[in-house]
């Protein structure tokens, strides 16, 4: 299956639900073909986010989960650029001062989402 995450961490329940769902699916033996972060969901891939000590650090938890299970995690390029979520390449291309994308995520386009639809028997959306 694949997941589409529309919601930002901290402002939408969807991001946390998606993370819990993803963990539960993996524990149940399901294969995650791809995570696709779209619109405000790209904030989940922001490496510069700092969370209060008494709150769950969703950004860190996503990164750890993706790394541990070697998940294919893609952020939509149009959504990401507009929100300042940049990898090294995009940061250099647009002459910005920093890199903000956690390196466990890739930047790509909606074609990756369509591909996920074609190769997954379920695509579940979170954050609307």
């Amino acid at each position: 299956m694949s997941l589409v995450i529309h919601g930002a961490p901290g402002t939408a329940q969807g991001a946390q639900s998606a993370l819990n769902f993803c963990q539960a699916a993996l524990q149940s033996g399901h294969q995650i073909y791809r995570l696709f972060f779209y619109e405000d969901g790209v904030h989940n891939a922001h490496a510069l986010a700092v969370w209060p000590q008494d709150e769950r650090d969703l950004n860190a938890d996503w990164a750890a989960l993706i790394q541990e299970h070697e998940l294919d995690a893609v952020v939509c390029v149009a959504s990401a650029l507009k929100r300042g979520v940049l990898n090294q390449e995009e940061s250099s291309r647009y002459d910005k001062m920093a890199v903000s994308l956690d390196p466990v995520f890739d930047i790509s386009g909606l074609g990756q989402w369509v591909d996920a639809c074609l190769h997954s028997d379920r695509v579940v959306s979170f954050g609307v």
Partner: protein
Amino acid sequence: MKTLTFLARSAPHGTGKAKALQDMVLSAAVFEQKIQLVFLDDGVYQLLAGQDPSALPAKNVSAALPALELYGVDRVFLDADSLQTRGLGDSELLIPAQSCTAEEIRLLIADSDMVFSL
């Protein structure tokens, strides 16, 4: 080929949801999937002709609707109740959309491999 159904439920401006869903529809169309696009709730406002959001820092999302047919997206539906409760009529719409009952929309969804709602 899979059947992807898109539920356009948000007003055209004020949030990015209408544009975000439209981008998904066009991307899926490029990959030549069977696409069903359903306008319902405030999403029926996206269909209104003569929109001018130039006073907003927003593009006219609905301007791209006539291009749907060029992308092969010809299964376009609207929820008749949503249109009626907002005091709108078919004559005010920018593109033709097949008027549906809630039950007919339920069947469209049931017939789909995947459903996306924004």
